[in-house]
Every structure is written in C-alpha cells, then in structure tokens.
C-alpha cells in the first residue's frame, strides 16, 4: 500500500498537570477514546515523586489513520514532546501554561493551547512577605500570541461546580476544541467505562465541552472587595474625587475601630497632604499621594490590638463568613475555635504607658517578655468564649489611654511629617515614603521586624541620607521591596549598603547554645 495517502505525522498532545489532579486519568481517557476509533495511540508519563504536588507532564501521540488501513505497519511514536512539534498543549493551571510556552511547546504554526486560568500558587509565590504572585495577565497575553488558538477559562471553578476534578473539564474542553479526530460520543463512552465518579465526570465534561466550543461563556469574576457604603460629607467636600472611595472606607473603618473623633482625626491628618498634592499638580497622577497615604494611614490607625481582634472575631458578619467559607449547610451547626496566644507584649499594649513600661522592664530583666505567652483555644461560638471576647472588645473606650495607642500615634505623626515635608517639593518621593507603611504588618516578632525595617529606612534614606531626591526616591522603593522580599531583614541591609550605608549587625537572637556534656563523660 502507498504511504503518501497517509498522514505524514501523528497528532501530539502534551498535558501539564500538578500531582493528584488526575492528569493520568485524562491521558487514559484519550487513549480509550482513540482506541475505540481504531487509531494507533500511545501515552507516557513521568509521575515518580513529582506526583507529590509537583509539576508533571503526560505525553500522548495519536496517529490519525485507522489501524485497519495500515496493514501490518505501525507508526513509531515518540516518548517525549519536541519543541514546536506539539499540536495540543493542555495545562491544568495557568502558570504551567507559561512554563510550557517557555519550553517551546506552544507555537503559532501548530499549537492549540487549552489551559485553565485559575492559579495554584507555588511555594515561592506564597512565601513572599508582600505580594510574590506571578503576573497572570502576562501569561494570558503571551498565550494569545504564542498559540495558534488559545482556549482559556477557569476550569477549576467548573470542576467544583460539577463536583468532579479538573481532568474531566479539561477532557471536555479538548473534545469541544475539535482538534482531535475523536467524536464526542466516543469521549463520553471512555468516561463511562472509567472506574468511579462517571456521572460527575460527565457533568464536568459537558461544561468543558460547551465552554470550549463557544456555546457557553464565563463571566470574568470581579475582585470581591467588601466596601463599606458610608458617604462622608467632609471627604466629598475637601478631597479629590479619586480619593473618595479609599478615604470614605478609611473614615468608616476608624469610626468602627474607635469613634467619630478618631475618624475625623484621620481626615485632619490627611488634609495638609491632600492640599500639597493639589498644589504640586498631583492631579496628573490621579492624586496617588493622597490615595495611598490615605490607605496606609487608615490601616495603621486601625492597628490590631487585643481589643480589636476580640471585637472582629465576635461579630455576626464574621460568623456568617466562616460558615460560607467552610461550606456548611444551613442546618449544620458550626463551632469556631480560635487559636490565640496572647503574652506580655499584648497585655502591655493595652495597659497605660507607665504600667506598661514597668511590666516590660520587669519581664525584660528576666528575659520573659516573649516567653510567657499562653496558648488558649477560645470557642467563640460558645457562650463563655463569646463573652470573653466581648468583654475584651468592651475595653475600646479606654484604648486611647493604652501604651500601644500612644506609641503608634507618635510613629504615625513622624511618618506623616516626613511625607508632607517632602510633598512640598517632590510628590513621587513623598509617595515612596508614604508607601513604606506597607512594611509594618503582622503580629509579634513579624511586626517587630517590620517596624524595625520601616524605621531603618526612615532613619537612613529619609532623614539621614545625603542623596538627591531623585536617587532617594529610587533607593527607598528598592529598599522597601528588599524589606518585603526578605523578612529576616538582611535583604534590606544589603540594599542600603549599595548607598554606602553601613549594614547593621544581624539581629541578635536569644540563642541558647546547647553544648553537649564533655566527652570524657561519654564512657559512663
């Protein structure tokens, strides 16, 4: 028989998946469907330890001619994909689609890219102290350019809605794309023959198929932000429109945190900065200085102390949110047990300054400041636990007398002073200083480290530095990123060192050097 009539190459399908997502099942379905149509087909994979949550791939080759036509000849199929030789690239997660592109497996002449747009973040991305997430937009854009045809939608969401795993939706999308010579019926039959959960899988398949074939469209999910609707006269009157949402949110937040006076203190503090922003033509940048300073001032002024935490944790809205998050059915009781471990620091924070000082001095002498924390499990849905939290929350009116309040307000004032001092001559520098407040976050040691980094930048680059404003602006932004990237603070020191600022010695940790008893006693 003559070969010329036969296709000159196989259809190649590369599947990128994460361990435990059923990539293997997907490959098996493709095999079964192809076999049922009498096509020569072959798959390989490299599970190994990658199956433990790592990225892994499955590779399938299908020769689009019926075995019956081939006589005793069989195509030779490859075991690994070759760059620019992949017809269908399937990715169960967006970043993996990016990885596939980087490896040359997605090319405009040939590749149909079928990828879910949801993200499962890598350890590196999750560990970052600020926001270490890879920019999804870049991947989506690249996909449109690199692929011959890109089929992109959130398949994880569809999988959850149909109570199955993503592999079923991917298979549906593959069938719906119409790239493979496999009729829908054959694919569905392959699923039915599969071991368990066929019904749910078919539902997922159905959805994937309809979205990929363009019958159905997915609404782009807008970011869910819980804005408090609280129009504020004063904000509307004095501040630029661009800043209204953030500032009104801030006002509402601080009224909720303390009281009306505290909220208006917030605006008092912002007014001069907004004024400078206007004078310096901040309108061009959409009054970024006012907005961002407003944002971080609100966050800082509503710092989380015992009182605040207790208040937030015992609210009705919060109970409802938890019920929703853990997907409890309406008739199912849900108990919430809080993991709290307050210690000297937290106690001292709510005491009046003079008492707080004494307490810290006393424990400091004995090295107990960070040792006396007591781990408690508070059942906030239980009557006693709830009362405990409410009692703490009830201390709110006394907050102004607390040591932490005094301390925070002082630092806030210093920060705002530097912002407004610089805003007079250089808005972008002022903005950079304003953004530095982002470094102060977390609790306990994390918070101490953050605050230390913040002060370090203020002391060296803002007050101390001899750099000109332009260089200073760049330096501060670099230093801030460094501080966020490396919580241990060495990153920051290295960044500062580039401007000839002598690095501080590493933070002295309370190290107990555990020397073993002398060797001579070993014989014993």
């Amino acid at each position: 028989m003559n070969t010329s009539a036969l296709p000159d190459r196989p259809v190649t399908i590369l599947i990128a998946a994460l361990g435990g997502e059923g990539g293997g099942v997907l490959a098996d379905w493709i095999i079964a469907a192809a076999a049922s149509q009498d096509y020569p087909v072959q798959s390989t994979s490299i599970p190994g330890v990658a199956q433990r949550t790592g990225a892994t791939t499955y590779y399938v080759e299908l020769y689009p001619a019926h075995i019956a036509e081939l006589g005793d000849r069989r195509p030779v199929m490859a075991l690994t994909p070759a760059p620019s030789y992949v017809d269908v690239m399937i990715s169960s997660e967006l970043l993996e689609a990016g990885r596939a592109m980087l490896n040359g497996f997605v090319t405009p002449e040939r590749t149909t890219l079928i990828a879910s747009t949801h993200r499962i973040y890598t350890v590196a991305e999750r560990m970052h102290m600020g926001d270490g997430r890879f920019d999804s937009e870049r991947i989506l854009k690249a996909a449109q350019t690199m692929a011959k045809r890109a089929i992109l939608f959130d398949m994880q969401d569809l999988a959850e809605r149909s109570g199955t795993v993503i592999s079923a939706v991917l298979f549906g999308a593959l069938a719906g794309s119409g790239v493979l010579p496999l009729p829908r019926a054959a694919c569905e039959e392959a699923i039915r023959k599969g071991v368990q959960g066929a019904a749910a899988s078919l539902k997922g398949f159905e959805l994937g198929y309809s979205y990929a074939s363009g019958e159905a469209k997915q609404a782009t999910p807008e970011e869910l932000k819980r804005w408090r609707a609280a129009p504020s006269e004063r904000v509307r009157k004095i501040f630029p429109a661009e800043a209204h949402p953030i500032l009104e949110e801030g006002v509402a937040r601080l009224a909720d945190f303390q009281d009306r006076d505290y909220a208006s203190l917030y605006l008092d503090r912002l007014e001069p900065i907004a004024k400078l922003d206007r004078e310096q033509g901040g309108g061009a940048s959409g009054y970024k200085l006012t907005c961002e300073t407003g944002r971080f001032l609100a966050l800082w002024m509503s710092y989380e102390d015992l009182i605040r935490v207790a208040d937030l944790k015992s609210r009705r809205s919060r109970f409802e949110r938890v019920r929703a998050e853990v997907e409890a059915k309406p008739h199912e009781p849900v108990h919430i047990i809080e993991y709290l471990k307050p210690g000297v620091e937290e106690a001292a924070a709510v005491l009046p300054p003079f008492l707080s000082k004494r307490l810290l001095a006393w424990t400091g002498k004995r090295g107990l400041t960070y040792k006396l924390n007591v781990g408690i499990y508070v059942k906030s849905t239980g009557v006693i636990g709830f009362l405990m939290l409410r009692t703490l929350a009830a201390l709110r009116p006394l907050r102004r007398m607390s040591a932490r309040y005094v301390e925070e307000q002082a630092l806030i004032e210093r920060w705002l002073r530097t912002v407004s001092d610089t805003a007079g001559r250089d808005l972008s520098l002022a903005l950079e200083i304003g953004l530095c407040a982002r470094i102060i976050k977390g609790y306990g040691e994390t918070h101490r480290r953050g605050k230390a980094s913040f002060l370090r930048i203020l002391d060296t680059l803002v007050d101390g530095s001899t750099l000109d404003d332009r260089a200073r602006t760049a330096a501060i932004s670099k230093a801030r990123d460094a501080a966020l990237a490396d919580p241990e603070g060495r990153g920051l020191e290295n960044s500062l060192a580039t401007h000839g600022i002598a690095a501080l010695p590493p933070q002295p940790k309370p190290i107990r050097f555990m020397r073993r008893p002398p060797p001579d006693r070993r014989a014993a």
Partner: protein
Amino acid sequence: MERSFEAEVELLKLGRGQAFHGEGILAVTKALLQSGVSYVGGYQGAPVSHIMDVLSDAREIMDELGIHIETNASEAGAAAMLGASINYPMRGAVVWKSTVGTNVASDALSNLASAGVKGGALIVIGEDYGEGASAIQERSHAFAMKSQLWMLDPRPNLPTIVHMVEKGFELSEASNTPVFLALRIRACHLHGSFEAKDNRSPLISRRHLLQNPDFDFGRVCLPPSTYAQEKHKTEVRWPAAVKFIREHGLNEFFAGAGTQPSDDVGIICQGGLYNATIRALQQLGLSDSFGATKIPIYCLNVTYPLVPEEVMQFCAGKRALLIIEEGQPAYIEDAVLAMLRRQEVIGAKVHGKDVLPSAGEYTNEVVLTGVARFVETSAPRGLDTAYIPKVHQRLAAAKSAAAELLGAPIPPRQPGFCVGCPERPVFSAMKLVERETGAFHISADIGCHTFSALAPFNIGNTVLGYGLGLASNSAVDSMFGRRTVTIMGDGGFWHNGLTSGVANAVFNKNDGILLIMKNGYTSATGTQNIPSSPHQTEYKSRDMGIEKTLAGLGVKWMKTVHNYRVSDMAKTLKEAMTSSFQGLKVIIAEGECQLERQRRIRPQNAERLGRGQRVVRERFGVDDDTCSGDHSCIRLSGCPSLTVKPSTDPLKLDPVAHVNNGCVGCGLCGEVAHAAILCPSFYRAEIVQNPGAWDRFLHLVRQTLIGWLQPQERKAA
C-alpha cells in the same frame, strides 16, 4: 497498601491471542508469567514499584501457578533471592529502581554472576534517569560490564519489551548468566498494547516441589572455584551469549524500505532511544512516520555484550557513524571505536558525544539537535539536508519569543509534602528550635522527608543513601560542640538503618539524636507496607514494632511524639539536645501517612454520612479581617492547602493567607501559629454533619444568646 490493583490483576489473566492494553511495567509483569517464572521478588521504587504491587494483589494467580512472591527487605535481599536459580533450573525475576537499587544489590549480584545460573535469572531495573528521576544520575551499564551480566535495553514499544523479557530468560539459560532488563522511566509508564499469550506454570514451583538439594562446589564462591568461574565467564558464557544474540536477532537493522537510504553513513542507537531517533529523522525529513529511514540504523536491544560481527557488518563501507548513547561514560562508543581499531577499519569517523551532550536525558529535542549536527558535518551522499537549518531556527525562536513575552522566569514547582502530611510539622518544629538554638547539622535520608531540603524549610545538610542517614552522621556528630540530628524514615529504618545505623550507633556509643519518621509505609514509592505498618495482609506478620526493635538493640533514650503537636516536638528536640544522657537519643515522630489515612477514612465517613450518622468535619481557616498578609505562617508550613488569595479588604493591597478546600484538618497551621506565636487569625471550624437533636438544641440556644449580645454592624456593601 490501601490501594487495590484489581483492574491490573485482570490484565494478568489474559490468555492466548487476547489484546493487552496497559502500561509497560504491567506488560513486563504479564511477560514474566508467560515465561513461566517460579519466583518473583524485589524492592519498591519508582518507576517499577507496580510489578510488586500488582503481583502482591494477584495472590489467586500466584497460588494457581505456584509462584513464590516476596517483597524483599532490600534490593540486596532481592538479588540474593536469585541464588535459587544457581543450583536449580527454575526461572526467577527480581525488580528494583536503578542505579541506587543496583548499588545496594551489587554484593549479591557479583556472587550470583560469578557462580552462574542454571535457571533463567532476570533483573528488571527501572533506569531512574532524566526528567522525573528522583535519585543520583548514573548508568547501570557499568554493573553489567564489571560482573559480566547481560544488559537488555529494548525498543520502547510493548511487543518488543515483552519479546525481550521472554528472550531474556532464554539468553540467561543459554549463557548461564543473569540478565538485566533496563527500562527507562517513560518506557515503564508507556501505555500501549500487545497480543497476550497464556501464562505458563513453572516446572518447579510451590505446587511441584524440589526433592533433592544439589551440591556443586563449582558453584560456591570460594577459591579455587572463583578462579574457574572467572575463566568460565570469559571463555564459555560470553561467547555463548554473543552467539545467542546473533542467532535470535535480538539486535535490529533498519534501512528505509521504499526509500533510497544513504549507504555511507549510519546510526547506532540504544534500543530505548530508537523512537527518539526516528522522530528526530522524521523532523529532519529523513524518515516517515513508520520508521522508513534514509539513514540506516543498527538498534541495540542488547547493549551488553556487543556483537562484534554485527557491528563490523554495519560499519562496512561507511564514512561516518553516529552513536546515540544516553548518559556517561560512553561505554558503547568507546567499545565500537576499539573494535574498529582492532579490525584496522580506518575509513569510518565515529561521532557521538562530540555532537550529543555527555550528560542528561536524551529527549527528542536533544537527539534532534545531535542528529542534525551529525548530518550537517557528515553530509550523507544523496540526501537533501536543506531542511535542517530551518528546524534549528524553529526550536530557538519558540523559546525566545515566549521568554520575551513572559518577561520573568517561571517560578519552579518542585514536589513537596502532601496536604496534611505528618512529616511537615516535624520540620516546622525544627525551624522553631533553630530560631532559639541557631542552625544545627542535620543528616537527612531518602524518603518523602528529603523534601525538607526544599523551600520553605531548607533543612538537611547531606543525603547519603536509603537508611544511611545515621551512618552518615557518625563522624559529623563527634566533630560538633553540640549535638547533631539525623532524620530517618521507617522505610529506611527497615531497609538498612536498623543495622548500619542504629545498631552501629549504639555499639559505638554515638551521642547523636535520631529522629524516625514513623508514618507506617514507604510512602515515597507508593505507600507499600513495611514490617511496622499499622495494617497487614494475612500474608504478613503483624507484631513487628520499631519501639520493640530499638529496645532490643539497647536504645535507652527513646521518646515517641505525636507529629502534629509542634510545641511538644520542639520541646523534645531541645530536651534531646541538652540531655546529660550519653548515647543515642531516638525520637519517634508518629503520624500516619495522610495519603493512606485519607484513602481509609474518606470512604468510611462517606458511608456514615450516607447512613445519616453524625459526622464532625474539621477544617481550618484564616480570618480575612485580622490577617495582615505577611505570610509568616506559610514560611513555617508550606502546606499546599495553606495558600494566598486577594484580600477582601479594599484597603489591603497584599494577598492574605487562605486555607482552601483541600484542607484535611490536620491542624498544623493552627499549631504553628501557636508554637511560633504568629497571629490570632487561625481558627478551627467543626462542622456537625447530620446533627442530632441535642446538637440542634444547643446550637439554637447559643445562637439566640449570642445574637442578643452581638452589636449591630453597618452592613458591608
């Protein structure tokens, strides 16, 4: 082993003429039965674990055929088991991951090879090399050469693989020599089909027992026999093997039918790389989909020993040769060069590692580039090579374009601990201890726990081999002013650590700390059972405990700690560090492998729910409101279900920590938040499914009481 392999077992029952559809490694299993093996053994390890897993579940067939099946204590044990074929004409097969497994087995292998075998002895090794490999990158080829064992490397398609298994036994018997069958990772997981034969019941088996023991001093590895054995290897067995390989045409010659193949160049490739070679030629326009190549190929399904006559015959009249041989050193290339020199063939230029990389997996891309360079330099007569530069460009273009569009490198996604893994908390605890004591030396071992070396923990200074953690620590420990820690899994403990580690440490009064991960299985290889597994089949002894064993060895300082109690674990570690006790201190970290636990518990809970019984579902969560998005909890856990999500707070820019629905409620995140005094954001939610009357009543009371006292809030928009 909670997972069952019923479907796979069914495939083993297939008879003559029926079509087998399945994975390569399963095809090998079937081929063993078709070859009439009397016994099968091995030690689990990717990519060949399946053979033992499936056969262990196929007791029915095993009993029917009278086959002895055993999961050995280690690869050394498996290799030693092949001793049964030294005196008696019965076929046996063993299986393990190579080269690591072959390293462990080599003592027994050398003795086996020297004594020689009457019955066919086949060693199925999974070449754990290249992408997806989990161990050091070496070739097993050298073992074949040094001990005079033969090495099969079949073309990766099921009929050939099955054929080579059957021929392997014949070759072994024809040359009284054990035979390696090497399968690369992808070949093991290759899904294809072949025509099955009936299973053969062995002549000697548990059903047809041996009567008289055979004593033959010539087969005992003791001088002077050993001298005779060495002579016999080179003078009798080797020639016999070469003869058999030739006569049965185990190696294959391919020259494109229907095309005009070039006659002045040729390619010699390992069988396992044949498909990659054909695909490369196809992409260069030098072959069609069916392997009708324009450049002749000599395909080595047997990579050791080589057949000089065949090599000479292939090289005859060729100007240039390409040898496609994966890994290093390039034994085959060197051997061919030597042969040509010996025969004083001057004309043929031999290419190999000059156009192909010396290290790393030979993927399609690699082979394609190598073949292209070979064709360019050797310019075969009568071939159109115009296509080649274009292929090069395409390869490069795709990658650089993507790199530019993405702008930044894609963060790596390495394997790690599963959701709720009981080993993770131990490393969280270590991190916390290190905060207080500063870093200490940690000798790591092989197992899932080796992932501790990756982010976020980066714990573990050295890895020296399976079960060898404690042995690798002995000199280090005495060189430190403070105590050092060794980590060992229970799998490693039974494989090797018991003797070379614990017994030795106690004997030598080692003052170190040993931490044993007691999760009940060899989890990294697919959760196979070990002597101390919580549940055993009827074929296994039940009462073998690690604690008992250690006590028996004279371990005096021993503490068992529940993994998820992070503070307790940290406390116990510090205690071991400071204890005035001289001698080995053992901490047993107890917590069942979560994979297995979930496999067992999920169906149970589903059933109870179905019956309408009360089930309390536990899971953890993080409060949006109080989480400040510093992610220090993640830096101490790395649990896949503890991730980040955009904050619902309009003022917060950074993503907040978030526990997704993958959470199995192990409680680590909460424990860490406590132990490290992180933040008050973690909560445990207990969802009462199928609540009873009392549950509902209590819930009602609480809700009303709390409802009264709850302040009114301004509703969020």
